[in-house]
Each structure stands twice: as structure tokens, then as C-alpha cells.
């Protein structure tokens, strides 16, 4: 029997395995170890939600705490990557990208191109995304479309413990800058996770559930909402195929198109803002490349165009859920 690990444990394990394997891998971020500068024992935090907890015991000062200076330490991770290391830097919440985006989008993303192919920047930036924690407007966003917009970055949005581990190992070994987006509401979910090292290639979608009537493309937490919806719809005899792209850049357009060519119908569910977001991105790609197969309009299920609200009742209404997905599926089926 394969062990069950939480998404958070799976990430921790991937980090440990890669740090073990490759001494050029270091982990850095605010309180990723914790307790530094105090007289008490270290590893006091292990990251704000404990994801890196325990790494200090194994790897000591390769788990590096940082001042609250995202531009500096993420820039340092990028610079170190360009000098032969493989840093994994933690941007605690993706919502904080506004204080360090330049280093990611104008430096890391562009070095190789601007320098005529003569640079490699194997940096990974782990960051938390998503809602559900009543963490309000500045700690609940899903800004991966901003990274997806930018050539030169790779963007990962894992939806399960097994994927999280395999994709993170791939990310660390990849020679390009990778943004690794961890949904905070998934940390606690458990799933079977193989022991030891394994990789999941980027740009290969996962068919989470096969079906012939409607294609649902969903990422991260939304895969679970889509699955709930599909389970409910199955009772009405509607068979949804759920495609989890796993990486938004590169995007497995082939598998999405294949599914839509089969079903003729597309619903895209995404927790990010709908304007210039992933839902639009995938919808547009399909409207361009599989138009002839489409039997109905494409539906997008995204939050309303508002910041994430604090109040639990409002946040619940804000987030896409199984009901909204069901409604969208019915809409594309015209039922």
C-alpha cells in the first residue's frame, strides 16, 4: 500500500529529497527555519504554515531565514541561480509579488533571452495562493496569471499531494525559473504519495476524471470543486471530463484540445480573477484552435471581479464552488 501524505508533507519531502541529492539546493525565506537571533532552539516556525518544518534539523544553515526584504532575497536567489546554485525561495503569499516582481519578471524571466542564451537561472519560487482562510484581500489571491503572462517563467499549480511532490522535484531540477503555487487550503488534504524521488514533467495535463459530455479544465483547489460537481452531475447521467493542466506555463494545449474535440463543450473553472486570467486564456486558446468542435459557448467559472472579501459569508459566495460549476456545465449543455 502506498503511504498517504498531506500536500504539505509531500512538499516537505520533495524539498528534503532534493536537498539531500544536490548540495546546491538551498531553501530561503521568512521564517522558513525561524527563531534566528533568539536564544531559543531554531526551526521555531518552519514557514508560516509549517511546510518547511524539520528541514533545519537535516540541513542546517542551508535553510536560510531572511529579513522581510522580498526584492533582496528573491533577487539573491535568482542571482545565486545564475551563479550555479539551485535556490528554492519562498514568497510567503503570492499576494506579496508586488514588492519583488521586478526580480522575477524582468530579471530571472529574461536573463536567458537578453543574454543570447548564455544564462541558466534554475530558481524555484514557492508561494501560497488562494482563498478560504478568511485572510481577506491581501492574502487570498491567485495571481499566477500574472506570472503566466510573462515569457521566460514556468508556472506550476499542483492540486494533489502526489502531484505536488513530483512537480516540485521537477521544478528544482529544471533549469528555468519556476513559480510553484501552493494552495493553502490544500495543505491539509491527504493522498497517496510514492516514496523516494519521482518527477512529473511540466506541460502534461492530468485527466483527473474521464468523461464524454463536457470538458472541465480546472487548477489547484478548483480541481476538487470540479470533481464534486462532476460527481453530482454523474447522478444525472452527465459525464464530465476533468482536465488538470498542472502547469499553466507551459500549458498542455494538446490534451485540452483533444478533450474538447471529444466532448465539444468546455467549462473552465479558475479561482483567479477572470479578466486576463487563466480561464480566459484557456477559453481563448480553444476558441481559436478547436472552434469547429465546439457545440456550445464556453463557460468560465471564476470569482466575481472584486477583491477577496473578509467576511466568511462573502468569501464563500466569492469562491467558485461545485454548485457554480454544475450550473456552468448545465449551461453549456443547454439544459
Amino acid at each position, binding site marked *: 500500500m502506498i503511504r498517504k501524505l498531506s500536500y504539505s508533507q509531500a512538499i516537505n519531502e520533495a524539498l528534503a529529497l532534493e536537498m539531500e541529492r544536490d548540495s546546491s539546493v538551498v531553501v530561503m525565506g521568512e521564517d522558513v527555519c525561524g527563531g534566528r537571533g*533568539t536564544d531559543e532552539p531554531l526551526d521555531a516556525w518552519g514557514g508560516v504554515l509549517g511546510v518547511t518544518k524539520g528541514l533545519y534539523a537535516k540541513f542546517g544553515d542551508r535553510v536560510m531565514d531572511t*529579513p*522581510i*526584504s522580498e526584492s533582496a532575497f528573491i533577487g539573491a536567489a535568482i542571482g545565486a541561480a545564475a551563479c550555479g546554485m539551485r535556490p528554492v525561495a519562498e514568497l510567503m503569499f503570492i499576494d506579496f509579488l508586488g514588492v519583488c516582481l521586478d526580480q522575477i519578471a524582468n530579471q530571472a524571466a529574461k536573463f536567458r533571452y537578453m543574454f543570447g542564451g548564455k544564462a541558466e537561472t534554475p530558481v524555484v519560487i514557492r508561494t501560497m495562493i488562494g482563498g478560504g482562510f478568511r485572510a481577506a484581500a491581501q492574502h487570498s489571491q491567485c495571481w499566477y496569471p500574472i506570472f503566466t503572462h510573462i515569457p521566460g517563467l514556468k508556472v506550476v499549480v499542483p492540486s494533489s499531494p502526489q502531484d505536488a511532490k513530483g512537480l516540485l522535484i521537477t521544478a528544482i531540477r529544471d533549469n528555468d525559473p519556476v513559480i510553484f503555487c501552493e494552495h493553502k487550503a490544500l495543505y491539509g488534504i491527504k493522498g497517496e504519495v510514492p516514496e523516494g524521488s519521482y518527477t512529473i514533467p511540466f506541460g502534461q495535463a492530468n485527466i483527473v476524471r474521464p468523461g464524454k459530455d463536457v470538458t472541465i479544465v480546472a487548477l489547484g483547489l478548483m480541481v476538487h470543486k470540479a470533481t464534486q460537481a462532476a460527481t453530482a452531475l454523474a447522478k444525472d447521467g452527465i459525464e464530465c471530463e476533468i482536465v488538470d493542466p498542472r502547469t499553466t506555463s507551459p500549458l498542455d494545449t494538446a490534451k485540452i484540445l483533444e478533450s474538447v474535440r471529444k466532448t465539444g463543450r468546455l467549462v473552465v473553472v479558475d479561482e483567479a480573477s477572470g479578466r486576463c486570467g487563466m480561464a480566459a486564456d484557456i477559453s481563448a486558446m480553444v476558441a481559436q484552435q478547436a472552434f469547429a468542435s465546439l457545440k456550445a459557448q464556453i463557460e468560465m467559472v471564476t470569482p466575481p471581479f472584486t477583491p477577496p472579501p*473578509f467576511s466568511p459569508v462573502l468569501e464563500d459566495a466569492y469562491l467558485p464552488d461545485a454548485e457554480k460549476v454544475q450550473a456552468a456545465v448545465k449551461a453549456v449543455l443547454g439544459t
Partner: protein
Amino acid sequence: MLKKWQKKDLLKAYRTMREIREFEERVHIEFAAGGIPGFVHLYAGEEACATGVCMHLKANDKIASTHRGHGHCIAKGVDINGMMAEIYGKKTGTCGGKGGSMHIADLDKGMMGANGIVGAGPPLICGAGLAAKTKGSGGVGVAFFGDGGSNQGTVFEAMNLSMAWQLPCVFVVENNGFAESTSPKYTAPGVTNLSDRAKGVGMPGVTVDGFDFFAVHEAAGEMIDRARKGQGPSLLEVKFTRYFGHFEGDAMTYRPKDEVKKIRQTVDCLLQFRNKVTSAGMVTDAELDAVDREVKALVEESVVQAKAAPNPPLSDLLTDVYVSY
């Protein structure tokens, strides 16, 4: 030092500090009980700072706060009932339940917002200073940030900009010894005091004991006065500790077990204040006890009201994104 003081002001200072303390102790309890959603960062232990600074400010003066903002709110006059309801996410909250603990703001009271982004307040307060300077209103802006926040480039930039533009601003670094679990001894090993940050931009910088209300009050008064007179910005470091975890739920393994307890029993700002004013014979213990009781009732009432208050209607989800659509 006490001679300059009028009794009513002493009572006011004490009351404000007590309101903050009572509010935070109560939120701590209620959070543990499970009624409060989200991330909550408590200000208990740091009351002398918000109070000592804000007592110098008028309604028209502005402050920019942090994720640990309740104390600044109360000291700047934000309604406690509204705050408590906001923390509970209710319609009657200061922000109608849309902001929560990390985003309480009340522009009418000159409170420009708690802030979920470390270091975001100082640039905003430059704007407040600019507005005051442009209008010639005599207003000032005060930005609070933490020892951790002092590492953020935005804070440096804002202090530097306030020098270039000679803005009526005061920067207050609340050094409570930790950013989450990390000490400034680790993140800023080169400086003895965080007020030394001022030297990089050439503004005056002063460090005071943050458990001593009167020390904070005096130093802040001079800086605010200076700013108001158009003599430029300055940086005040207030040193103390927080009594609770970084946020509610933090086990605080990075601190010695009894540290907080000892501080509470020795240098606590309310305790010191009480000792000073009573032994100077300016206020009696009974008078302060009365304040304590009043405040307790007030906060109790705010919790009762908050719990009973309605949630925001779902239609509120879509409003307030824009002034005009």
C-alpha cells in the same frame, strides 16, 4: 515630567491604553473560543506606543498602520464596537465586514488602514504628509511599522522621499523584538538601534523605552511638533515586546517560557503608568480601577453586539469595487 500633565489627560492616556489591552485580551480569548475568522495579530504589550504617539494627533492628522493595527485604531479614535464587529466579519463592522482585522481603516478619523503588506504604510503616509503640506493644513502623518518592516525597501524609500520633499511625517518603528519568530539581531546585525536607519537618509532618529508611556509621549511629541512646524521628518524607535504570539495560534517556541509573564509583572506599560501617577498623587488607584471597569464593560458590550450583528448581505460582495462603474 508628570508636572506638565493635567489629570484628565492622564486619565485619557490610561483609558486608551486600557481599552487596547482589554480589547486585545478579549479578542485573544474569543479567537481561542473559535468565533473569530482569519489572521489576527494582537497589540497587547505595545499600548504605550500607539497611545503616546496618537495623543499628539488631531482628527485631521493621519496614521498608517500595520497588520498589528488594533492599537493604532483605538488610539486614533476608531469606534470599538465597529472594530469588534469588523473582526467578526459583520455588516456593522468599520468596513462592513469586508476588511477584517488586517484592514480596519477609518479615513474620517485619520486612520488610513491596517495593512496586510509589511512596509506598505510608510509610502502612503508620505502622501498624507504631501496632502497636508500642499494644503497648508498643518497636518502631519505618522507611519507605524515593525522591526521586521524596517527591512523592507519601501520603508527606506519613504523615509528618503520624506526628506527630499521635506514632508511633515514621523516614522515610528515598533521594535517588539520579533518579526514572526525572527529577531532583529539576525536581520539587522549592523545597527544597535533601529533608529540608526535614520542615518542612511540623514533624518533625526531616537530610541525610547516602549514600556514607558511618558518616554514615548515625550519623544513623539517633539517629532510631531517638528514635523508640524515644517522642520522635516524623523524616526522614532519604540522598544518593547508583544504579549501574544505573532498571530493567534503561534506557540511562541522562540521565546523563553516565562518572559512575558515577568514583563507583565514588572515593566508593563499600564502597571508602570499606574505606579507613576498614583505615587505622584495625581490619580488614585480607585479612579484607575473605575476606568478598568468601564472599559471592561465597553469591550464586553462590543463582543455581545458583534456576535449578535448580522452578516453582510450577499449583495455586498459586488459593491465598493469602484466609486463609479
